């Protein structure tokens, strides 16, 4: 009956994807920025030491007795060893003529600015090295002498450190992402929660509960809930109008019929002439027929209406049938029919009590109507593992063999009903009620003797 709502995407999914990809990008940026920064720091550190080393060598260059002497200080290399165990190369030239060290070691490339010392990176002996070159101008007896010192150091230690730091930073990035992901899931959840709460509070309602949603809701949802409330208001009004209309229609039809019927009865007891008597009896019969038809039509309308809005609750079938039997006893008494209800333990089923009551009443009513005077109507319960039922057996005319399956159709009556008044809607109502509850109705004749055997079943709760 209800069409499945078409879902396109999910708010939570969208939020999750957006927030998580944001957090991922941020984590990546964090990773690269920190890695870059530490790399720069490490390089700068090496450069500074290389510079200091170069400077300390140049500082000791001096002219002694017309000779250039450079007594390389121990600290010049030891300070490099402090940083890592990388290999160190050096080269000293005088006026671009190789003096000592590694002849093949290149100079650092000249920087754009002419500042000293120059720093660059090169490949030397198959390894990446950092080169620092600085020059100093000495004067040897008035002749200028250009001393150039180049020191190079491989970068293995630095690379190891960087790799170590990278691992740490990537762990940091991942940790950041994980925390962000947890927060994201939580925030997506809490964003969607009011929606879920609203959905639950609306879907938990009984079909008759059309009150406006009163629970506090976030401001953004106010228009939606407002629209929902208005819609429910309209629905409630129109449902109320249909119910009221059916009830009012019943009242309008029945009250005048009641007047006519009672007056006809009084008149019947007063008239003496037989033809008047017969006419009045006919009249009362016709009134009964029309009021029965009107009543059942309106009941049928109400039942059809109600089956769409079942008010399901837990109820005890035994207690309900017991009350109904007590209620029908005076009517059965009029024909000296004994209603015999077999006792049972409580039988709980889930259902709409008014509808089930109406169905059972219709069946008892039928049993009394189609039974001869001074007969017995037996009612007993059926208790299976999955279903609970009521069997009503009478000693009446039973159902005709040929059209039994049609009897639950509207306005169809058995071919053997004779002059008994009926609308042909009783079993239709019963069938509708049973169908709405997922139960079953079986119409049989008693195996032995005559009379009907009607079985009504509901799923047990």
């Amino acid at each position, binding site marked *: 009956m209800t069409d499945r709502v078409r879902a396109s995407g999910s708010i939570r999914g969208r939020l999750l994807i957006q927030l998580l990809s944001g957090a991922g990008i941020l984590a990546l940026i964090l990773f690269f920025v920190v890695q870059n920064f530490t790399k720069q720091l490490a390089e700068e550190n090496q450069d500074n030491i290389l510079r200091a080393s170069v400077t300390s060598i140049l500082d000791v260059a001096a002219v002694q007795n017309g000779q250039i002497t450079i007594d390389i200080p121990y600290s010049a290399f030891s300070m490099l060893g402090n940083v890592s165990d990388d290999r160190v190369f050096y080269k000293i030239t005088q006026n671009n003529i190789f003096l000592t060290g590694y002849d093949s070691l290149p100079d650092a490339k000249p920087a754009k600015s002419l500042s000293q010392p120059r720093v660059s990176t090169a490949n030397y002996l198959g390894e990446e090295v950092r080169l620092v070159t600085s020059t100093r101008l000495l004067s040897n007896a008035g002749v200028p002498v250009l001393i150039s010192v180049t020191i190079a150091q491989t970068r293995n230690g630095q690379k190891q450190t960087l790799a170590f730091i990278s691992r740490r930073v990537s762990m940091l990035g991942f940790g950041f992402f994980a925390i962000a992901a947890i927060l994201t899931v939580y925030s997506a959840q809490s964003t969607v929660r009011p929606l879920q709460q609203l959905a639950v509070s609306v879907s938990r309602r009984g079909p008759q509960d059309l009150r406006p949603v009163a629970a506090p809701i976030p401001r953004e949802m106010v228009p939606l809930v407002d629209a929902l409330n208005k819609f429910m208001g309209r629905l409630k009004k129109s449902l109320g109008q249909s*119910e009221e209309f*059916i*009830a009012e229609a*019943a*009242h309008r039809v*029945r*009250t005048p*019929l*009641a*007047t*006519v*019927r*009672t*007056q006809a*009865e*009084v008149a*019947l*007891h007063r008239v003496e002439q*037989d033809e008047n*008597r017969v006419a009045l*009896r006919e009249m*009362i*019969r016709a*009134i*009964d027929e029309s*009021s029965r038809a009107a*009543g059942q039509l*309106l*009941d049928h309308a*109400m*039942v059809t209406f*109600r089956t769409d809005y079942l*008010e399901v609750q837990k109820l005890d079938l035994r207690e309900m049938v017991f009350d109904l039997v007590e*209620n029908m*006893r*005076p*009517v059965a*008494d*009029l*024909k*000296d029919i004994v209603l015999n209800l077999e006792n049972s333990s409580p039988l709980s089923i889930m259902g709409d009590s*008014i*509808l089930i*009551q*109406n169905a059972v*009443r219709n069946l008892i009513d039928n049993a009394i*109507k189609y039974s001869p*005077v*001074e007969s017995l109507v037996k009612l007993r319960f059926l208790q299976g593992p999955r279903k609970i039922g009521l069997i009503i057996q009478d000693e009446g005319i039973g159902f005709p063999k040929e059209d039994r399956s049609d009897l639950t159709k509207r306005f169809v009556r058995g071919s053997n009903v004779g*002059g*008994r*008044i009926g609308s042909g809607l009783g079993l239709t109502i019963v069938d509708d009620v049973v169908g709405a509850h997922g139960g079953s109705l079986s119409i049989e004749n008693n195996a032995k003797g005559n009379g009907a055997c009607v079985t009504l079943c509901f799923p047990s709760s």
Partner: protein
Amino acid sequence: MRYLLVEDNLALAKAILDRMSLNGHVADHAARIGTANDYLKVSDYDLILLDIMLPDGDGRQLLKEYRANSGKTPIIALTARSQVSDRVGVLDLGADDYLTKPFDFSELEARCRAVIRRQGGAAENIKRFGNTVYDGVSGKLRVDDIPIRLRNRELRLLEIFINAPGQLFSKSKLVDRLFSYEDDVAENAIEVYVARLRKKLESSDLKIITERGMGYRLSLL
């Protein structure tokens, strides 16, 4: 028995009152809740017949208030509404029974009797005829202080006679009173019930006399 009928439809009320007096009952009639409350203040009734839709309010309101003020008289609601249309039934509000309009008067009487009997019989309604005692409320017949079991139809037949002792009833009249309008009953069917009742009244001072070609009447020896 004494009834209070609360019904705003005057034609229907008059018809019911007429029908009741035919059965030997006394009834007051109120067309509004206000009038009904006035009656209830000053008189005691064996039974109240209450219409639900009234011009100055809802009969269920009267029902609730009457029960809240510990009114004990049994109430039968007369409703023109369908049984399936009211979620809160009149029974939940304190009515003892209800009847949907239009109703068969025999059913109304049967329900009245059932309700009064369930209540333990408000007032004694005992009629004595020589050695025979009849309680109209409980429907019990005793002859020489021995209870006699009567079937419903026998009882109703006896009641028709007892409410009008000496009056002559034609077979057709008795058929009209005793059988539902659904059954096309031959007048001879009444003979069966008269014969049965006669048998039960064998030792009683009450006798059912056959007036040949005219009908039956009850006479006291």
